[in-house]
């Protein structure tokens, strides 16, 4: 490789290439291949297939309606999940407001009613912890969706305006919503590497031995 080619390669190596540039590079390489030998003819054929594959990718992305995924579906899903967190926080706050009022009155009641109500209020406080747990899990899902949105946008950007290349695969907005809603029905994975309180206690105790 001569110095000017090396300089050009160094200049380009740290950046992303557009679909068009990649195809131009492939076609340029193909143009310089002497197809007289069978090996070179095979290489030429493989590069030609690769170029066609990349060309086709654009229309395949269009069929997937990836712009709608990154611009509409994912933002809508994340907004809805954010709203779930917000609404459950409000509802939990209202429940706890009521509990705090009841707890004050329970303190004035004689046994067994007073202590029994206080115990029930404690159980409600404990149960309200669901909002913290679900909120954290939903926040993780939202972050994942935003990451996917970013990656899809990058792919769409690399392949140009794929929407213009749309030739088929059009589904109705109603179908899309149904698919999106269905995808949200699967909750976050539970269990797995997580440990129970008993396992944590045993682990902590092992430090004291």
């Amino acid at each position: 490789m001569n110095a000017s080619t090396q300089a050009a390669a160094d200049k380009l190596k740290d950046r992303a290439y557009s679909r068009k540039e990649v195809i131009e590079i492939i076609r340029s390489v193909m143009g310089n291949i002497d197809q007289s030998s069978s090996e070179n003819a095979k290489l030429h054929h493989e590069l030609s297939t690769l170029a066609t594959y990349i060309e086709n990718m654009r229309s395949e992305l269009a069929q997937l309606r990836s712009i709608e995924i990154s611009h509409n579906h994912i933002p809508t899903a994340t907004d809805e999940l954010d709203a779930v967190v917000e609404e459950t926080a409000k509802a939990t706050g209202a429940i706890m407001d009521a509990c705090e009022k009841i707890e004050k009155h329970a303190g004035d009641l004689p046994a067994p009613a007073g202590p029994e109500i206080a115990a029930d209020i404690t159980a409600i406080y404990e149960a309200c912890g669901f909002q913290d747990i679900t909120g954290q899990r939903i926040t993780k899902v939202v972050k994942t969706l935003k990451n996917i949105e970013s990656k899809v946008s990058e792919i769409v950007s690399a392949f140009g305006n794929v929407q213009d290349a749309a030739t088929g695969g059009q589904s109705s907005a109603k179908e899309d919503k149904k698919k999106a809603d269905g995808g949200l029905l699967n909750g976050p994975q539970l269990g797995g590497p997580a440990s129970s309180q008993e396992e944590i206690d045993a682990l902590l105790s092992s430090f004291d031995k």
Partner: protein
Amino acid sequence: MAVDKNMNILVVDDYQTMIRIIKNLLKQLGFNNIDEATDGGSALTKIGEKPYGLIISDWNMEPMTGLDLLKSVRGSGSKVPFIMVTAESKTENVIAAKEAGVNNYIVKPFNADTLKTKLTSVLGEF
């Protein structure tokens, strides 16, 4: 030695619901001087303003995690009892917290009995 129920306690969590739950449970146990912080930075500010007898902190906060807060507290030379309350119950997290100087670790979701058991473990009988 009897536990001083007038001690200052700091509850740190970025979810207001969890702060309220812990505060209410602590009040039921007789602790009334309870401050709150919704992030590690404001927790450190409060810790610098008055002495605390106990810190109860969530792990999963941004930008400063509960582990970062714990390290910062221990880095200042403080030996204040520190309980981590978190859904982050992976073994490596527990080990990291222990190595950073946590006194005990409560896994969410938890109940009042678990909180009392952990407080007794850290502070003594009350």
